[in-house]
């Protein structure tokens, strides 16, 4: 996937040549960047990984300086010259300050919250520094997302939640995190692209499917469920409630003056739900996974235990968030190696 939108000269070339040239350039650039700023869970921003260059406003400022210099020279006015040189000094000083507004801070990836394809994946970061300086107006973002602005107090740390959108399932790398700043004067932009060595689990996109075909299981494995009218096995007594059938009143215990009870019977019914790959025969893999995903989510909303059957995989029925996440994970990583190779470029 495209890590960064990197403006390049090649974007001016005719489309066909331009695209390949840009691709080549971006590949080389990415490889160089991987060597320069290697992936790590915690990255300290130093001069080794910070880039700095005048911004557009900075170039305009240089234009202003030249204009002032021209006025000073033509009017042979030393004071206008002094002002022009003072602003030159300001530009130079602002290089140091913009750089140091990134330098010294560290970025740590804490965890990634799993999400579904097409949704935003949330990544928690810890930004900290131990110096007695304040950091102002740092911008963090993954490609395609609006930046999150951060001010760090002296010796402070902050937790940030960043998002990126994933268009594919499985273990997904969010790409490089862009950290940038224009502080203090906007004349220069200092930035870095960080690979925080974090992969996020992305579940298939849930697609609405019909009801899950019911599969009544065999008695042994079944679970005793609620009372049913047609049950045969005596299960126990419970306090009489008005409306209970007269035939079910435990007259014997009533006769013993123990109170009025109703006899309860239960049928042993297998209420487990099987979310089965085979129900969706005829569809391709991704469509099946999306519908299975929907069923998993739906089943968790219900009251019955549910299990998952995939080719070669069977997860026994259970309930709860942990169980649901385990199932979703199976769906996310199912036949990932085929998926990876099959994925067209356009989806990246």
């Amino acid at each position: 996937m495209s890590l960064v939108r990197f403006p390049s000269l090649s974007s001016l070339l005719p489309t066909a040549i331009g695209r390949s040239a840009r691709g080549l350039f971006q590949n080389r650039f990415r490889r160089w960047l991987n060597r320069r700023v290697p992936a790590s869970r915690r990255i300290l921003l130093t001069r080794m990984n910070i880039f700095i260059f005048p911004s557009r406003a900075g170039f305009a400022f240089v234009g202003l300086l030249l204009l002032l210099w021209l006025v000073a020279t033509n009017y042979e006015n030393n004071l206008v010259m002094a002002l022009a040189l003072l602003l030159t000094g300001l530009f130079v000083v602002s290089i140091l300050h913009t750089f140091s507004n990134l330098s010294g801070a560290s970025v740590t990836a804490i965890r990634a919250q799993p999400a579904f394809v097409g949704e935003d994946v949330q990544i928690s970061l810890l930004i900290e520094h131990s110096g007695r300086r304040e950091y102002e107006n740092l911008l963090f973002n993954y490609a395609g997302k609006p930046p999150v602005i951060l001010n760090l107090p002296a010796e402070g740390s902050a937790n940030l939640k960043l998002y990126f959108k994933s268009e594919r399932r499985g273990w997904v790398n969010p790409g490089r995190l862009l950290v940038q700043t224009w502080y203090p004067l906007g004349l220069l932009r200092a930035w870095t692209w960080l690979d925080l060595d974090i992969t996020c689990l992305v579940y298939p996109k849930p697609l609405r499917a019909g009801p899950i075909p019911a599969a009544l299981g065999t008695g042994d494995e079944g679970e005793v469920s609620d009372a049913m009218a047609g049950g045969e096995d005596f299960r126990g007594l419970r306090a009489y409630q008005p409306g209970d059938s007269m035939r079910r009143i435990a007259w014997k215990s009533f006769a013993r003056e123990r109170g009025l009870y109703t006899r309860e019977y239960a049928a042993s019914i297998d209420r487990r739900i099987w979310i089965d790959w085979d129900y969706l025969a005829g569809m391709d893999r991704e469509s099946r996974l999306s519908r299975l995903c929907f069923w998993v989510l739906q089943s968790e909303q219900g009251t019955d235990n549910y299990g998952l059957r995939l080719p070669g995989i069977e997860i026994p029925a259970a309930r709860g968030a942990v169980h649901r996440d385990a199932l979703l994970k199976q769906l996310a990583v199912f036949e990932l190696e085929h998926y990876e190779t099959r994925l067209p470029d356009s989806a990246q």
Partner: protein
Amino acid sequence: MKLVYQIPRNSLAWLLGAYVLVIAPHVGRLPIWITLAGVVALGWRIQVHRGLWSFPPRWVRYLLAGICGAGLIVGYGRLLGLEPMVALLIIGFTLKLLEMYQRRDAILVIYLAYFVVATQLIFDQGIASTAYVFGAAMVVTTALMGLNQSSGHLRPWRSLKLGGGLLLQALPIMLLLFILMPRIGALWSVPSQQQAGKTGVSDTMTPGNFSKLTRSGELAFRVAFDGEIPPQESLYWRGLVLSRFDGRTWSQAQPFDYARDGTVVQWPGSAPVKWESLVERRGDGVSYEVIMEASHQPWLYALATPRASNRDIGFTRDFRLVKRLPIDSRYKYTVTSWLEHAAEPQTLPEWRYRNETRLPGDSNPRTRAMAERWAAEESSSRALVARVLNFYNRTFTYTLKPPVLGRHTADEFLFDSQRGFCEHFANSFVVFMRAAGIPARVVVGYQGGEISPLQNYVLVHQFDAHAWAEVWLEGSGWQRVDPTAAVAPERIERGFQSVFSEQSGFLADSLFSLVRYSNVGFVNWFRLQLDYMDYAWYRYVLGYDNQLQVDLLTRLLGKLDAMRMVVFFLGCSGVILLAICWFSMWRYVAKRDDGVAASYAKFCKRLAAAGLERKAGEVPAAFAARASEQRPDLRAAIDHITQSFCVAAYAGDIAPELQQQQARELKTAVSGFRPGRGVIYKR
């Protein structure tokens, strides 16, 4: 609805403040309607910010721009001039306020503010004005900074502090660049200030117009002599030579008066002129530097007979100096004058003689009659001059308030009023001489000056303006004759100020001028101090040019070559940048080791020496437990040290004083910790 960009409130406040500061010094020069437009735009922008009004619609903005453009053209009549250009800039700046939606617009306004505030320095280069401009630049920088802070920022004074800090850090870089930046001179000629009134001596003289100058205490120029200052009575600063007389007004000779001598100005580098040899310079010259205030006139003042080396200064046929362009801002030039000289000592050719004795036929009949009579009675020109001066000395009065004269100025002055100022004397004397057949002409300029005790320089004020005469005498050429000196010698010997400071016309227009109070001791001292500051400011800051640059760098580096310059530049900038890094960044890097970790490391080392090595990854508490088990004799000390260390290093929730106290305790405990080689109980 689209999300509207909001200029951060902090930045907008500073931006509007900067706008006011930047426009304020220009207000006096601008037509009133521009100021009003500025106030309206400012008010409108504030209302927009408060959410009460909205931005003016597009057609209103176009209409405003059209009206302002038309106003400029009507008001100034032209656009190519310094004032109309600055006014145009200010209008653009003002209208842009009403169109400031985007961050980009705000940046443009801020850059315009830098530029507009810089133009103030073209109009006024005083110390106060410079300080003001740099202060305003600080506010503009603060606005730029606010624009790059997050929008919820509500600490405006902090922004000012940071913005000011940035400028302060830029200051040493500015100084270094200012010293080293080559000054290449104007690339093309630029429109200059045109509204300013011409000050000082004018190029015509009518009796009565000099006394106006005495009402002004303004400075005309300063002169710093290389050696001794010549005596006061020889400080005749020649400015103009007036040879043409229409019966009432004296004016300069026209170039065609000298047509037979060819060009009238000898510019440096141009072909030599033949009249150059007419002046003989004798002996050693006197060298001095003149710093002239803006006069908006091209002529320069110098002692006779001058020579200057500046490429902009020419030498005229009547032996004066003149600059190519009017002096619109302070101007410094270096002159050498030969006080001993002879100008046109050879016999004057017929056409020259005619020019220098010409009088309009019908003017001053009484003077003519008397001059002809006296010329016949006297044997030589010198005797005639002496007789006329003697005549002045006996019955004439030198006064600031001469009576108004009618048509025949010389007649009325010589025979009726006999009260006059320098120009009355010069006028009547030259008319008299010409009538007697002696070539004569009027010279105007300044006489004398005030010697500043602080530095070896002379201050010449407007009230030192003077008019005197030059007569041509057979064998010696043009000779200076000052008829005023015959009447009031103290005027020439002690200066104008000492004669007239009690008279009511003196400095009438300068009520608050400190010169007026120069008889009060401390006021005078203070005035001269101020003037010295101003002088030094001009000489070393405004007048810092190639010459001074070479001098300074030669003094600093010993010798000027590329290698030394590069080393000097890199060395200085390196030191400056390191200092900035230190003061603004490295100073704030957390001190990793405050002694606590070092103390604990020492403790571990001592235990290791005693055979108890701390394992990698072993937390202090676990290590302490293990060590205490093996060396029960040290248990108390180990526990104490470990506890102090944990509190000093890790406890984040206690008062810092307590933590520091623990750190001190740790230090003393560790330094007294001597485990020795005891028995180690193996588990």
